[in-house]
């Protein structure tokens, strides 16, 4: 299973990548911005995308819109990383095509199983 992580914070990206790689046995692709993520999603065709909500320039929701517009990437499940849950906002993101949400800070020892559960791979 291959997961793309889009997050501008290196600390979050590297721990997520290590957690998914070592504890989840997954293949991980990292992207440090929304634009970078969109290109890598089309190129590497991951099974799921982990997307940070707050990023400079193109933020999480903006990235989601672009991913869903592109026929090459629109089927890939997108899971948002959000620091605080604001229900109204989450509902809106769902209607835009987000598959699920994970709270930040996440638990690195459970991240891979949470992703699998959200995209229904387990």
């Amino acid at each position, binding site marked *: 299973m291959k997961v793309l992580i889009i997050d501008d*914070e*290196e*600390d*979050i990206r*590297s*721990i997520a990548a*290590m957690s998914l*790689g*070592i*504890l*989840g*046995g997954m*293949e991980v692709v990292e992207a440090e911005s929304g634009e970078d993520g969109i290109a890598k999603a089309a190129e590497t065709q991951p099974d799921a995308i982990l997307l940070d909500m*707050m990023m400079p320039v193109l933020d999480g929701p903006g990235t989601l819109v672009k991913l869903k517009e592109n026929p090459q990437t629109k089927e890939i499940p997108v899971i948002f*990383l959000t*620091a*605080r849950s604001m229900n109204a906002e989450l509902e809106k993101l769902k209607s835009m095509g987000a598959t699920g949400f994970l709270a*930040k*800070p*996440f*638990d*690195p*020892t*459970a991240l891979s*199983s*949470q992703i699998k*559960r959200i995209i229904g791979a387990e």
Partner: protein
Amino acid sequence: MKIWQDTFEELKQQYVIRSAERVQQIEDLLNSLAKAPGEGAILRELMRHFHWLSGSGGIYGMPQITKLGTQGEELCENLLRFNRPVTRSEWDKCHALLEALKIAFSHGDEQDPQKQTMEKPLPRSQFEGYEILLVDAEQSNFLFLAKQLEDQGMSIRSVRNAADALQSCEAKLPRAIIIALPLPDASGYELVERIRQMENGQNPVIFFVGTKFGFLDKVQAIHSGADGFFQAPVDWEAAESKLKHLMERDKTQNYRILSVEDDPDQAQFIRAVLESAGYRVHHISDPLQFEEALLSFKPDLVILDILLPELTGYELARYIRQDERWATLPVLFLTTQNQLEAHIESARAGVDDHLIKPIAPPLLLSAVAARLERARFVKNLLHRDGLTHLLTHTAFMEQAQGVVAQCKRNPQHIAALVLIDIDHFKQINEQHGYAMGDKLLVSLSAIMRERIRTSDIVGRFGGEELAIIVEDLEEYDAVNLAQRVRQDFAAAVHKAPDGSEIHVTFSAGLAMLDPKVMDVERWRRHAEQALRAAKNNGRNCVMTALGGKR
């Protein structure tokens, strides 16, 4: 635990270093804000820094940082929303947050060693102490597998090339060797050939992992003496369970073999050969005792003569094959009947091998060993729960049926059924994630394996429910056994994903089988009743079906 923990600690150190810069930036921003109160751009920048701390602290096992970050973020949000100057108390709060952050970061590392010394070591699996050698030029292919194996108490040796691998094997042969192809200094197949030529070199389980395995590569791998190969990207869970299965192959010497032979000399020969290899042999000369022997001796393999008084071996073989309970039981013929018709007839009867007398002992032994190994593999696939390696519900109930039948035939035989249910399992799953729940089940099954006797039957009964059938113990002793498992489990410290330590208990219900009035369903209901009583009685206790609390 080492591989994940090392990586985690390394990342955490980098995180703490970067955080020191962040905290410094927060301090600078606060100073600028003092000069220009109410400046939106500065506040937004400040909020971004707090947001980052809030989202990252908990990941690195520092929940205090997340809490402080969230407070800071909320403070900035309020200030931005109402667009007013910062009050005195808000200033104080900002500075207090800053100080608290500095303290939290400087103490971040000191909590961990303490935690580690408090942890009580658990029996992690039956593979505890096994040595595994990983040969990988990249040193990156096996991280996931290595972590899984370490978690189960195996010790990992890691080398980069064939030369080091050979040296490591010469010093001490590991229990298993996994080789990522290609190697920088030699062909992997040659490496395996050389290991196999060493003294006891046949013993380790050897696997290849590689990207391109054509049919010829696979044949070459097997020819070199490897036990298997996995194509990248590897399904690591499948690889792990195959590895564990193969590592167990030498441990299971206690196989039971039923031999049906009316010639006493032949019977003596079969027994002598098989017993010399460590098998337990039960012999009958009268085929009419066959069913009784199957039920009471519970053989893992049957060897039949064809020409017997009253019944033929064909009929006995067909009798076995028509009954689902013995679907995986290997049946061998050992006979003087060597005509073509006899071979055809035995194939039709569903017999696994047709061996001709007189037979050389090595041929008999290798035929028996191969069939037993194959049957064990198939049985494992059919009957073992993937997570705990205990019997599945169906397989457990089948065994329970067998025990009931045995007790009905022989009133001397007694048995107790113990149902075990982890307390507050649902809340644990909700609070700490399903991975935590799984971890608890594995830990409990490891404790059970250590505490109970190998003859006891252990199964995973449902989600969080395990079950044991204890034979030949009086109620008092059976309760004691369950109590010991309960105490061990309650005393264990489990580390939750968020770093906190939790204690978990279970409740158990025990019912003795009364073969005069009970069938297997009724027996189970009695145990379930006792389990409910234990739950109602405040949990973390063992209750018997008659209602006595222990």
